[in-house]
């Protein structure tokens, strides 16, 4: 008998290697945990198709479960429904901000603006100012874009709404 609650709590220990303050549960990429014969099946979905962290995440999930006596683990990757930042937990968003990355705006705001149009103002994670400028829509990883705060002058990453 698999204790799903226990497995979810173990998955909380597996962090995104690129954004180590977020667990895979915070990110919203764990879509299901279910019994699979005598073992367990974890269903996950990638953030972006080319995210290089996914292989490491899969390995780390296996490792953490194995360290806790769960060797019979099936990892299933699904693509649909496609991941959205709306699945990120509120706790995850708070952790991101504390880490210095502006958390994603909810997607009912302008998530995919027209040409030369910008997303609604993104607050600086350092000084909370909305007086910020987009430097580049593509940042250090696929999931982030690069901003600068015009008040405190600090550059920062924005985990973009997707």
């Amino acid at each position, binding site marked *: 008998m698999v204790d799903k609650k226990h497995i979810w709590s173990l998955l909380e220990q597996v962090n995104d290697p690129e954004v180590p303050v977020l667990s895979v549960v915070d990110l919203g990429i764990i879509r299901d945990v279910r019994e699979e014969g005598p073992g367990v099946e974890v269903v996950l979905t990638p953030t*972006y*198709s*080319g995210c290089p962290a996914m292989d490491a995440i899969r390995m780390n999930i296996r490792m953490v479960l194995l360290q806790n006596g769960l060797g019979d683990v099936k990892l299933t990757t699904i693509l*649909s429904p496609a991941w959205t930042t709306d699945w990120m937990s509120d706790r995850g968003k708070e952790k991101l901000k504390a880490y210095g990355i502006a958390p994603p705006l909810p997607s009912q705001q302008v998530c995919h603006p*027209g040409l*030369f149009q910008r997303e609604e103002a993104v607050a600086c994670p350092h000084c909370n100012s909305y007086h910020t400028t987009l430097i*580049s*829509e*593509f940042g250090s990883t*696929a999931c982030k874009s690069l901003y600068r705060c015009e008040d405190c002058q600090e550059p920062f990453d924005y985990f973009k709404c997707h």
Partner: protein
Amino acid sequence: MLDQSTIDYTLHLADNALVLGHRNSEWTGHGPILEQDIALSNIALDLIGQARNFYQYAARLVNGRGVGSEPGKRGARVSEGPGEPSEVTEDTLAYLRDSWDFKNCLLVEQVNGDWAKTILRQFFFSAYQFYFYQSLQQSQDRELAAIAEKSYKEVTYHLRWSSEWVIRLGDGTTESHTRIKGALDQLWKFTGELFVPADYERTLAAKGVAVDVTGLRWLWDERVNDVFQQAQLVIPAAGWEQTGGKSGRHTEHLGYLLAEMQFLQRAYPGCEW
């Protein structure tokens, strides 16, 4: 029941994404400024990720029906070197097929040239992928539909980024306008192929699996026209259109690209690091 057409079609989609992803990755470390270098590398990563999803699916299809069951056919045939596992993987499909096996359209294999040519190639292809993936989400093949749903969100960024750059260059300085006009003269003849279905596309479109690409033409034209108007560019008059890539007849550029991309696996089969 799955047939050779589905394998060919999936490989066509994979090859499109891989070849353009590889071309874009040639800019990594050479972009005009750091932010744009990163932008293009990010787009390359998205495309290679999409390619992986298609190749993994193609590999499952190939393995399911048995490798080499139709020895006379090209398609997904994979050359088997000594010591290679007989099971086909995404890597064998990407690294061990020859240029005549690749089914990508000619547009994506064209050399990078200058920034303007790279931008315009990306814009033409992103505008195509945008409508293509939108439509593929309705495919009867659930795996293809799922990959399309995932990829569509990413292509939205690529299309906006490349559209803005086309406008910036076209409506910029005399120099930038001349450059992108030159790129247009070089690339336009390869855009028609996107909307001319290969045999496997025709077969599968009739079954609701493949997108009927002929139906995307007007959407693409409208989008290109809209951006071109803002960029002070004009769509060239209808002329000669080069085709053949989708059925394995490529320009000379693909061979050089594959020689570089496949070198390691060809020279050291199964090498990992």
